[in-house]
């Protein structure tokens, strides 16, 4: 059945390829960036949730 489906849509084969390309390129971009990102930035970001002083519930 899928052959009829494919034939009925013009240029269907290009759909998945285009989106796969976008996906792969974007992903590679993010990955390269992650590898090169400065440590100071990473440290700052991962410490964001720890910024407040409410780590202990009971403050007397």
């Amino acid at each position, binding site marked *: 059945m*899928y052959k009829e489906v494919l034939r009925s849509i013009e240029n269907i084969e290009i759909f998945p390829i285009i989106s796969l390309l976008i996906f792969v390129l974007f992903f590679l971009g993010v990955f390269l960036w992650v590898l090169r990102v400065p440590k100071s930035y990473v440290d700052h*970001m991962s410490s964001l949730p720890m910024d407040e002083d409410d780590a202990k519930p009971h403050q007397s």
Partner: protein
Amino acid sequence: MNDATLERFHYDNKIVKYFGAATIIWGVVGMLVGVIAATQLFWPEANLGNPYTTFGRIRPLHTNAVIFAFVGNAIFAGIYYSMPRLLKTPMWNKALGWFHFWGWQLIILSAAITLPLGLTTSKEYAELEWPIDIAIALVWVAFGANMIGTLIKRRERHMYVAIWFYLASFVTVAVLHIFNSLELPVTFWKSYSAYAGVQDALVQWWYGHNAVAFFLTTPFLGLMYYFLPKAANRPVYSYKLSIVHFWSLIFIYMWAGPHHLLYTALPEWAQVLGTIFSVMLIAPSWGGMVNGLLTLRGAWDKVRQDPVLKFMVVAVTAYGMSTFEGPMLSLKNVNAIAHYTDWIVAHVHIGGLGWNGFLTFGVLYWMWPRLFKTNIYSTKLANTHFWIGTLGIIFYALPMYVAALTQFLMLKEFNDAGRLAYPNFLETVIQIVPMYMLRALGGLLYLAGAIIMIYNMWMTAKQGTFQETEEDQAPALAKAYNPAGEFWHRAWERKPVFFTILATIAIAIGGVVEIIPTILVKSNVPTISSVKPYTPLELEGRDLYIANGCVGCHSQMIRPFRSETERYGEYSKAGEFVYDRPFLWGSKRTGPDLHRVGKKYPDSWHYHHMVDPRSMSPGSLMPPYPWMTTNELDNSDLPAKIRTLQQLGVPYPEGFDEQAIAEYDKQAAQIVANLKEAGVEVASNTEIVALIAYLQRLGTDIKQPTASNP
């Protein structure tokens, strides 16, 4: 830092408290309904003898309550707590926040009223009728606007990864909700889906799958990335991994929807695409799990003592388990076993009870004492809750796996003569009844744990004093900020609106590729000329079938397996469903498939079976529907229904809406006459007559000989 530039502001804890309380209250309601539904599966009398509390109607009540009320409120509580603190600013607009809170609770309340009344679209996790759908859209937009407003007012330049997850969840759920809820209203409480048959199924499971992804998974990953480091008091294991995790997850998730429809009449390419991307999903999912668990490196001694961490560790582990199981279930040979059986039920409950439930409990146990500036009332009770809950999950899931495999093996067994060893579906159900009992016990244990939690939270609140606002200070963001040499991704994070658009594009690509061909191209569903629209009586019968949630236990989709074609008849074709609005393929067989039930039994068999299923099928677990023989069917909306369907393209002849009632009466009279012959007296305007008409029509169209029948 120059103190003069420091700004003072207050976080609002009140709305967090309200969302938190709503979470646990609705949670207990949803779990209770779940236990009742589970009980009905081995003891049908637990339906309390009326249509409103019968399985078909309370199953969607259970799923909606736990997903949108329990998990939904938990997400909001967590976001309203973490987002302001991560961005160093209160939530943007208090009034919008309260509109969000009360709007959401009203929606839940209206669901709790309409679903038992049988007002449903029958599309899973999107059962609510169109007026409520519109309300959901409004409240959801208010929630999103409040988040984006907060981002614009922020004092922290960069967005922590949790916020990315929140934003992606917001935009994706909005897109999904709108597209899946496209329907044409007939009356205030009745509408027909804008899609039919195969298209409807594809859109529904695109939605259904992604609702799991972007309502049950991504917001909770956001919560995990905030609350797990908080509870462990150490930063996340790898922030870099979290970035990769985020982008690969939202990119890939969108594509996996069709794995819910393997072996159905769905186009093959869509099935293959769904499977490939489902398997790819393991990578980002496990990246997230590993990141969560490794955050606890060097802190495992704390896990022994702190119930918050215990809950979170089991939650993250359950996430890892179900995200491994999910892709495995999307492999066609595994899916052949699991689909329509209790395996799927086990799978979703590992996710629901383990990942969502336990992470919610962990977050609440962590947050509640802080809101009330005290310590938890009883760590011992929290630990008790943890162990009862864990036992509950085990007692729930294990019997379901056993039940699924037992039933699968029985259904597939052929004897030496080449015939089905268990031709009667019921034989396989009776075999697994003990498993259903154990499952209900598991649910009961889990519920008991949640009730202990309510007591613990209540006492914690009582011993502390609620701090309505919490003060904090931070410097304002400098207006002009343009560092040279900043990498592109880092620059994006400073631009939340741009970032949101980007995330939308990411999820849209997957959705578009999957959906557009199916929606736009009519010719992708091969038409079968002998398939005709439903008659007025059958249409009303079908709407009754929908209202009573029959689809919760009966599929209408015979897969191309020998064991199924032998049992039920010719396998289902895509072209048979072109007038099905909505589609009723179902997702679980507690009873047999009904796609070819038409003309299989006489009308009187159906009559007696509906009045008392066990009179026709001894040992049946189906609840009796005696009220259908006396309930009168109000068919005054029939002309409007016909007109609506005509607008949607169903080829009823011009002016058919005026003849519909006469046609209805004619066909009803025939069924009444058939029943009378068999010694049953029934009025022609009762519900049972319409239902029998529909059941007798099912799957019969392609049995009629026509020249063009492929």
